[in-house]
C-alpha cells in the first residue's frame, strides 16, 4: 500500500523558468490531461491568438493568463505507472512568496527548476533557501530550456555546478540534477536522444524514487490537545498524534502544565476502545485522572515531554508587508498552542536570496527577509527544537490575526523552575552583541550546562572577547573548567552580588626575560 501512496510535489524556481509549462508536460506525457481540458486550453489560446500554452492548465485565473504568470499556488493531479501525484505549482514572482511557501509547506518533495539559458537567478536561490527552512529534504533540480542552448552539455554542467554549490550552502543535497526541455519533452518521461551525454534518470524516474513524507512514528509521543469535549459526563481530549504512538495504560505527562496521568481509552467514532493511535491519527483520549487540561497542552510520556518554553530562538521568514519590529508584540502559534510574544532580539537579518547578512542587531525585519531572532513568551508554550521534532519545532507568527511569518525553533529556554538543566549554547551568534559580546546569566538560578560550538572558539581565536555575568559560584566553576579544557584565557572579577568573567584567546605565555630576572645577588 505504501508504494502506491500519493506523493505531493512542489515545483519552484524563478519566474519564467517554465514551471507551468513543465506541469502541462508532465500531465500530457503521463496521459493525465482530460481531453476536454486540453480542448478548453486549445480554444482559449486560439481565441487570444496564441500558440498552445501548457501553462494555462495551472494558471486558471484570468489575471494569470492575461499576464502569463502564476499568482497563487494551485494543486492538480497526475499518475505514473508507480503511483498518483499531487502537483503543487508555486508562483515564481517575488511578490507571491507567501503563496509559494503555502504550496511548498504542503509538499513531500520539490522540483527546483532552473532556466538553462538564464541560469540561477534571485528567486531560484530564495526558493531553495525557503525549502531548507521548511525542512524539505527531497529535492530534484531540473535544468530546463536546454533546447534554447542547443542541448549543450557544457552549459548544463556550468549550471549544475552553480546550483549544487548554492544548495550546499543552505544544507540541501539534491537527489538528482536532470537536464530537460519541458516544451520539447526531453528527459521528462523518456530519455532524450538529443542529450546522449546524459546517463541519469528522467525527471519522472527521479520523482518515482522519492517517498511520501512518513508519519513521525519513530519519534517520541507528542499529542497536542486540539479541543476538549465534555459529553456523556466524559471528558474527551481531541487531537492528532503528531509523532510516536499512544495506547491505553500509557503513563503520560503534559507540557507546559507539568500534569501527569495514565491513558484510560483511545477512542474513535464507533470504536471507543482502539488498541493504539499512531502518528497522523485523529483520536479522542480519556485519562484515568480528572485533570483540567486546555487546548495547547501537549501530551508526551513521563520520561519525555516537550519543553515548557519561555523563550524561543528561531530562524524566521517574514511575509508581512509591515516590518517585524523589535520589542513589539505578536501572536505565536505552535501546534495547537498560542501565546502572546515579544520579539526580544533580532540577531541578524539575512537576504533570503543571497544569504548575505544585511544587518546585525537591526530593529526590524523587512518583508521577504529571513532572520535569526528570539521571542519572549508571555506564557509558556510546549515546544521542541526543529532538530528534535519538526512537528513541534515550527510555528507561525500572526499580526492582527493574519499569519505574517513562519519559523523553525533553533533553541528553547524553559522556565528556570523545575529540575531541568538549562543548556547555554555558546555559539558564534553570541558574538554579535554591539556592546561587547555579553552573556547574562545573572537571572539563572537553576543548574546550567555549557554547550560549546566550534564557531565560538574560532571567534575567540580571531581576537574577540566575551563577557559573562554570573550569579553563582557553581556557574563560575563550570566556566573555569570550560576555559581550562579549551585553552581559553579567563579573567574573573566581582560584579555586584555576582561575578563577571571575560573569556578571550589564551594569552601567549611570556616568560620574563630582561627586567624581571629577579634580584641578582
Amino acid at each position: 500500500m505504501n508504494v502506491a501512496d500519493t506523493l505531493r510535489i512542489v515545483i519552484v524556481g524563478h519566474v519564467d523558468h517554465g514551471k507551468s509549462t513543465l506541469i502541462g508536460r508532465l500531465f500530457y506525457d503521463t496521459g493525465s490531461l482530460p481531453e476536454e481540458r486540453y480542448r478548453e486550453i486549445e480554444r482559449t489560446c486560439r481565441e487570444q491568438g496564441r500558440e498552445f500554452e501548457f501553462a494555462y492548465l495551472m494558471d486558471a485565473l484570468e489575471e494569470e493568463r492575461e499576464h502569463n504568470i502564476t499568482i497563487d499556488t494551485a494543486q492538480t493531479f497526475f499518475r505514473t505507472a508507480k503511483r498518483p501525484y499531487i502537483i503543487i505549482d508555486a508562483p515564481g514572482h517575488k511578490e507571491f512568496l507567501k503563496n509559494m511557501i503555502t504550496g511548498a509547506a504542503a509538499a513531500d518533495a520539490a522540483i527546483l527548476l532552473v532556466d538553462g539559458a538564464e541560469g540561477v537567478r534571485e528567486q531560484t536561490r530564495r526558493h531553495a533557501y525557503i525549502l531548507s527552512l521548511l525542512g524539505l529534504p527531497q529535492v530534484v533540480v531540473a535544468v530546463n530550456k536546454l533546447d534554447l542552448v542547443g542541448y549543450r552539455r557544457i552549459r548544463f554542467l556550468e549550471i549544475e555546478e552553480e546550483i549544487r554549490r548554492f544548495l550546499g550552502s543552505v544544507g540541501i543535497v539534491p537527489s538528482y540534477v536532470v537536464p530537460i526541455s519541458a516544451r520539447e519533452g526531453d528527459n521528462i518521461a523518456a530519455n532524450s536522444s538529443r542529450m546522449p551525454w546524459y546517463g541519469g534518470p528522467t525527471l519522472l524516474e527521479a520523482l518515482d524514487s522519492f517517498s511520501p513524507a512518513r508519519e513521525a512514528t519513530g519519534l517520541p509521543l507528542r499529542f497536542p490537545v486540539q479541543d476538549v469535549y465534555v459529553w456523556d459526563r466524559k471528558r474527551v481530549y481531541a487531537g492528532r498524534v503528531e509523532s510516536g504512538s499512544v495506547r491505553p495504560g500509557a503513563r503520560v505527562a503534559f507540557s507546559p502544565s507539568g500534569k501527569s496521568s495514565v491513558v484510560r481509552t483511545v477512542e474513535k467514532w464507533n470504536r471507543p476502545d482502539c488498541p493504539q493511535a499512531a502518528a497522523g491519527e485523529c483520536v479522542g483520549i480519556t485519562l484515568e485522572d480528572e485533570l483540567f487540561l486546555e487546548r495547547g497542552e501537549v501530551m508526551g510520556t513521563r520520561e519525555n515531554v516537550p519543553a515548557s518554553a519561555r523563550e524561543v530562538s528561531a530562524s524566521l521568514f517574514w511575509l508581512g508587508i509591515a516590518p517585524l519590529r523589535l520589542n513589539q508584540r505578536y501572536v505565536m502559534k505552535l501546534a495547537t498552542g498560542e501565546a502572546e510574544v515579544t520579539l526580544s532580539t533580532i540577531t541578524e537579518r539575512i537576504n533570503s536570496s543571497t544569504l548575505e547578512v544585511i544587518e546585525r542587531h537591526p530593529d526590524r525585519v523587512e518583508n521577504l527577509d529571513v532572520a535569526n531572532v528570539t521571542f519572549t513568551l508571555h506564557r509558556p508554550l510546549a515546544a521542541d527544537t526543529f532538530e528534535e521534532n519538526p512537528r513541534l519545532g515550527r510555528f507561525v507568527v500572526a499580526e492582527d490575526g493574519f499569519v505574517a511569518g513562519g519559523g523553525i525553533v533553533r533553541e528553547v529556554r524553559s522556565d528556570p523552575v523545575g529540575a531541568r538543566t538549562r543548556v547555554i549554547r555558546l555559539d558564534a551568534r553570541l558574538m554579535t552583541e554591539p556592546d561587547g559580546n555579553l552573556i547574562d546569566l545573572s537571572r539563572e538560578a537553576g543548574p546550567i550546562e555549557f554547550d560549546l560550538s566550534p564557531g565560538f572558539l574560532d571567534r575567540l581565536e580571531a581576537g574577540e572577547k566575551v563577557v559573562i555575568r554570573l550569579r553563582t559560584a557553581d556557574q563560575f566553576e563550570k566556566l573555569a573548567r570550560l576555559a581550562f579544557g579549551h585553552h581559553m584565557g579567563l579573567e574573573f572579577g566581582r560584579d555586584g552580588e555576582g561575578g563577571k568573567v571575560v573569556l578571550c584567546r589564551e594569552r601567549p605565555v611570556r616568560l620574563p626575560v630582561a627586567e624581571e630576572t629577579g634580584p641578582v645577588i
Partner: protein
Amino acid sequence: MDHLNALENQSIYIIREAFRKFRDLAMLWSIGKDSTTILWLARKAFFGRVPFPLVHIDTNYKHPGMIVYRDRMAREWGVDLIVGRNEEALCAGMEPAKGRFLCCNSLKTQGLQQVLEKHGFKGVFLGIRRDEEGSRAKERVFSPRDRNFEWKYKDQPPELWDQFHTSFGPETHVRIHPLLSWTELDVWEYIRREKISICDLYFARDGKRYRSLGCVPCNFPIASGAATVDEIIEELKVTKTPERAGRAQDHEAAYMMQKLRSLGYM
C-alpha cells in the same frame, strides 16, 4: 497510513479546528456526494454527533430526488437542517432564462448570503475540491470573505503547517474546505469504504447518470452505465471527461466560474 486514511484524518483535523475556532458555524449541504462526505467526516470527528446546523440553499430548481434524499437523511442522522431560499428573487421571477450568471449569483450566492446574515454564521463548511475546476484549485482550506462576500483571490493569507486563518473582522465570514485536497475518485473510494448512503441520481438509469448535482435546467446527465459505486469508480479510472462537464454555468463564458466565485459563489 494509506491514502484514504491520511485524507480522512486531515479532514477531521480541519473540521475540529473550525469547530473550536468558530462558535457560529454551519455546514453547507448541497445534497451532493462531497458535502455528504463532509457530513460523514463530521460525525467521525465528533463521535457520532453533528454539533452545528446544516444549511441547504434551495433554488426551487433542484431535482425532486435531491429533496426526498435530503429530508430522509436529515431524519436518519438527526441533523439540524436550515433551508434557505432567496424568496424575493424567486417572487420576482428569477430563472436560468434570465441568464445563468445572474441566476446562479442570485439564487445560490445571495441565497447563501441571506442565510449567513440571518443566523450570524461566521464559519461555513463547503465541499469544494481543488480538482474540480481551476479557480477552486487556488483556494485555501480556511478562506476569508470580506463584508461584500468577496473572495480576494489575488491576496490570500499564507497557510502552512495546519495553522489556518481563523480570525476575522466583524462583517466577514470564513469558508472552510475540508475536502480541498481530495479528488473525485478519492471521494467515491471513501464512500465505498465507509458505505455512505448517497443520493441515487448519481447512479445510472437508462444509460444516463448525474456526475455532479445541481439545478434541473443547468445540470445534464452523462452517458454512463455505472449503476453502483464500484462501477462509478471503474468509470472514473478511465474517463477523460471532467467532472463538471454537465454543469452549464461553467461553460457559459471564459472565467465565468472565477467571476461567480469572486462574488461569493461556492
